[in-house]
């Protein structure tokens, strides 16, 4: 079962952070959260922070699943879990990219 988890964990974390950032955007817009931090709008700062945290989490997963200590004894599972770890990282960077490029709450 641990091996199955190794394969599933990174995309699962992507799904969770993707939903979380989508929900955060909904909350920010629905509740009229406003303000600014160092000249940047608070809304953008919050979302970029969440984006960065999600990426950091995925980088840690890639590192963890590549490290001897946490990777599987089976070469096959090692390979698949590293590929899915990269899938999680790329998906996080890619799908949440609008956080930095796009107008919010419109």
């Amino acid at each position, binding site marked *: 079962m641990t091996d199955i988890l190794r394969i599933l964990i990174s995309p699962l974390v992507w799904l969770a952070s993707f939903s979380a950032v989508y929900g955060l955007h909904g909350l920010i817009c629905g509740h009229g959260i406003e303000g600014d931090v160092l000249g940047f709008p608070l809304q953008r700062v919050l979302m970029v922070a969440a984006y960065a945290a999600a990426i950091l989490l995925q980088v840690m997963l890639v590192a963890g699943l590549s490290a001897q200590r946490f990777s599987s004894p089976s070469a096959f599972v090692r390979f698949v879990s590293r590929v899915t770890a990269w899938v999680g990282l790329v998906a996080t960077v*890619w799908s949440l*990219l*609008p956080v930095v*490029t*796009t*107008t919010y709450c*419109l």
Partner: protein
Amino acid sequence: MLVGASVIFGFVMVLLVLAFRKHDDAPRERLWIVKLGLVFPIAVLLALLAYGLFVGERLLPRQGADVVSVKAEGRMWAWRFSYADVEGRTTQGVLHIPAGVPVDVAVTSVDVVHSFWVPRLAGKLDAIPGHVNVLRIEADEPGTYHGRSAEFSGEGYDQFAFTVVAHDDAEWRSFLAGEIE
């Protein structure tokens, strides 16, 4: 987009046909999976995504000085339009707008989900009970444009249509003054 899609389709088909002629003895995972399966789609899709985000950003209904606001209220199976510029003025089935000026249509519904769609002016936007969605449209030329409801709404859906009349300056002023029905 159509050209790009055709080129990709043609490329895949050529690879398929060649499979029947050539024969690789060495299984080349790196070529097939990494280069063709990963790098190629990622490059194409990244370009497409950037384009989509850019165009989407341009279509946003931003605040402007000379935006005309109208309201579209859908019901089974008719649209009722009202105008911010004239208090109490409503029209049924015909939306009057000025040409050459951006118009924000506030779309809502009083019964089931409908969708406001004037193919030549903009994309579609749903009318959802309890929500008001704003669609930016703009007619470059005065004239009559056909509109349809584009969300299935039961038995009257087939015939559920409306028209948009875009007026030039003079006509629009007379509409506002109540001289055009």
